[in-house]
């Protein structure tokens, strides 16, 4: 998958309460969740973000709660991909399971500032800061998880393989 968009830069340990505050968890409607995406970090984010934009963040992105509402809100807000130095593990699983492309890179986030144009090739694991003319290699995605992405998420993977459907 090749993606290109305007970058939004965030710091370290962005928790799921900042991605989607719990006061909005009384719904799982993705359009409703998208309206409040990153609200406590930047109240204007949902209004400013454009379809295809890319989030870049420091370490431990998505820490805290298991709420799948977090990647759902990000995806529904139009964000095409999240790049971070590392992800909290439940967020990492959730993103693959529900089909939000994410990439881990130790170096790329430091080079990216809000407003930079960033291009990503998820198959090759390549991140390019087009604005600054810098290229980075993302940490490889395990083959099994590539399979999840190719199938379109965990449940589609299960449906395709037919395991345990009763």
């Amino acid at each position, binding site marked *: 998958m090749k993606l290109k968009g305007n970058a939004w830069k965030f710091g370290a340990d962005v928790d799921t309460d900042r991605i989607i505050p719990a006061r909005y968890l009384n719904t799982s409607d993705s359009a409703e969740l998208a309206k409040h995406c990153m609200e406590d970090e930047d109240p204007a984010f949902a209004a400013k973000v454009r379809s295809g934009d890319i989030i870049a963040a420091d370490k431990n992105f998505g820490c805290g709660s298991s709420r799948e509402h977090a990647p759902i809100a990000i995806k529904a807000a139009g964000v095409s991909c999240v790049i971070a130095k590392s992800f909290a593990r*439940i967020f990492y699983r959730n993103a693959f399971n529900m089909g939000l492309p994410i990439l881990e890179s130790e170096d790329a986030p430091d080079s990216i500032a809000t407003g930079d144009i960033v291009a990503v090739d998820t198959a090759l694991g390549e991140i390019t800061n087009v604005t600054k003319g810098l290229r980075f290699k993302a940490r490889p995605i395990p083959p099994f998880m590539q399979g999840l992405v190719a199938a379109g998420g965990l449940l589609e993977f299960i449906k395709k393989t037919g395991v345990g459907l009763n």
Partner: protein
Amino acid sequence: MSPKIRPLTITEKILARHAGVKEVTPGELINAEVDIALGNDVTAPIAIHEFKRIGAKKVFNRNKVVLVPDHFTPNKDIKSANQCKILHDFAKEQKLTHYYEGGEVGVEHALLPEKGVVVPGDLVIGADSHTCTYGGLGAFSTGVGSTDLAAAMITGRLWFKVPETMRFVFKGRLNKWVGGKDLILHVIGEIGVDGALYRAMEFTGPAIDNLGMDSRLAMCNMAIEAGAKSGIIAPDKITRAYVAGRAERPYKFYSSDEGAQYCETLEYDCLEIEPKVAMPHLPSNTKNISEVGKITIDQVVIGSCTNGRLEDLAVAARILKGKKTAKNCRLIIIPATPFIYAQAMKKGWFDIFLKAGAVISPPTCGPCLGGHMGVLAAGERAVATTNRNFIGRMGDVKSEVYLTNPAVAAATAVKGRIAHPDEVV
């Protein structure tokens, strides 16, 4: 002769058993059987939606899919009520044996061990990050998302990456007023909120051997706040006494082999650990209570899946007996389950709490995640026995949460500022 198996950690043994293999290695991806798959009123609606969307008709085992609407219950608004109804209807349709509502529901991670639904040696997944609590019983348990829960509800299995294990050895005896909460806050303060990322945390040592079950559950509960996949304590005679008369199913005690491999071992002398306070806005932002200084507090919350159990309410009652909460400081006490609620009443603690000026809430997650039953206004500060103090966690984005053990929380309510229990008792 079969080849000799390398020494394994307790976590590796439980995972291997559930994957149907003799041994597993950190980093390996496995597909393992799940003993309990858990969801709540925030996460299960998405899982149930996905379950239906993919065309599934029946859960893999109606005794093993557990639904606990505890976050926004008693239903706080119409949207929450609609979410809860999805669980209610699904539980009825699927004839789930472990569905709780009304006067039977409690905070999930207090309720399930108490009722013996989760037992030692289990592999448990839950669409709630604090599912790691059950490590206190010697089970492997980990938080997942709603799609994972849907997959487990359908197939009874889930994929896992076998984690490396970090070992934490606690030596010596606990100081007065120090509990499991302080030990885990101390660890998180040392290693950071991603200090155990993707790893299992194994707590051991003489201080753990003497630690009560409520404190063990509190420690494993907060493993996620260090980024860990799971936390675990090897079961022993304290575990045996706890599960006796509760366990719904046969259970198995696992323990780590001599020579098992740890990616890191950290040792702590408990004599050096005093009651801790996690300052805003991260659980790792810890200080010793003696270093906190004068911080006035508007609200104290004693409850949650971390510290809403009997041991926690007992210490709060001990401190609050004959005392009043400070003027301008609200105290909210939330017994985590109906059983704990009834016990606290029977033991006379409700009298103590009410005379002190506390509000006693029905069991709920409520204010812990800023849901209801005690949400903070802009500029307000709370001390809470809960597990997270992220920005806006308990209410307004300009409010603050300080995490402590129940003794410090109770003393704080009396003084109206963060206080050491010795100042009150």
